[in-house]
């Protein structure tokens, strides 16, 4: 017999977390990471105890959006995430020295379980998860371990994105995962179909990446704030 002991403590590690928000979208490059990172900053700014966990191990980017450099968790009965701009932040980049992380699916899952088992989030109002594109190990592990996680879905104005999104929403419904709302990112200003809110394409966003104060002042952040409110987030 071989027992993997780690799953037994994951619920314990997430015990103090009131809401887990998984920022998902089944397409790549549609703004999940900027949304998740900026949402975490917005929530922290509003006084909520907030965490951000970058679960996209292959393409970790939240540290770049935030401009979080030179951070490392504190070793204390596990790992305590460093606090950056009021956000408790966890990412695989702390352990990869900015090198590539070439993991197969089962390894991704193993690494996620390891980090969930050793990360001490403490008391949080919100834990925002930045998900990799698609439904894969990260998404399945979140459903398995973060019972009660709520989905904030990101899409873009494209027939392809919308069709893929429909399928994913149907799956979440079937699995009983609550979907807070669908946000249409990179919108051209037209009324989004099937989304609760739109975030316009912001030509100034790119230049604000890595600077939290500037990021929060972008039109992107303003739109996101409105979208988050519509989705019932603060």
């Amino acid at each position, binding site marked *: 017999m071989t027992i993997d002991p780690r799953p037994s403590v994951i619920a314990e590690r997430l015990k103090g977390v009131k809401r887990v928000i998984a920022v998902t979208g089944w397409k790549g490059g549609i703004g999940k990471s900027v949304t998740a990172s900026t949402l975490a900053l917005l929530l922290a700014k509003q006084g909520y105890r907030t965490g951000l966990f970058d679960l996209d191990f292959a393409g970790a980017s939240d540290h770049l959006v935030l401009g979080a450099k030179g951070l490392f968790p504190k070793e204390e009965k596990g790992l305590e995430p460093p606090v950056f701009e009021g956000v408790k932040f966890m990412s695989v980049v702390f352990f990869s020295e900015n090198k590539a992380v070439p993991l197969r699916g089962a390894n991704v899952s193993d690494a996620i379980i*390891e980090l969930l088992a050793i990360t001490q989030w403490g008391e949080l109002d919100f834990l925002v998860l930045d998900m990799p594109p698609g439904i894969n190990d990260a998404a399945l592990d979140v459903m398995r371990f973060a019972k009660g996680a709520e989905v904030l879905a990101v899409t873009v104005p494209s027939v392809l994105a919308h069709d893929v999104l429909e399928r994913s929403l149907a799956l979440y419904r079937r699995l009983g995962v609550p979907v807070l709302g669908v946000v249409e990112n990179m919108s051209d200003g037209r009324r989004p179909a099937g989304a609760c809110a739109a975030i316009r394409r912001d030509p100034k966003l790119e230049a604000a990446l890595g600077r939290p104060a500037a990021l929060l002042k972008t039109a992107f952040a303003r739109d996101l704030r409105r979208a988050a409110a519509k989705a019932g987030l603060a």
Partner: protein
Amino acid sequence: MHEWALAESVIKSAVEHAGEQKLKKLKETGVVFGELQAIDKEIFSFALEELRKQFPAAAACRFKIEVEPAAFRCKACAHEFPLKGLKKTKDEAEFIHFVPEMAHTFLKCPKCKSPDFEIARGRGVSISYIKGEK
């Protein structure tokens, strides 16, 4: 120390499995340390001693720790190799200690240099058996 978090998972998991098997008291639990993760046995055992106070079913449990040598199998060239001889810096060893999958970032197949290998044995912490009284 981060060993504490894993020690808690071991004791909690052992107690839960004992419950499932209708064992009232745990007598012995076999704990396997994968060589790759390089868990500090002393810190881990110290954490277990502290933790057992919170888990009455494990109050008298003996934790038998055994280290399993790591073994890798390359998916690219099928070469099988041990941990010994693979080069890593002190920092890299520490990252692997926290997340053993970082082996794929810092280690490579000695024959073909691929990071696409399988950790066949000796990855991290697991429980190999539990013994107890009904």
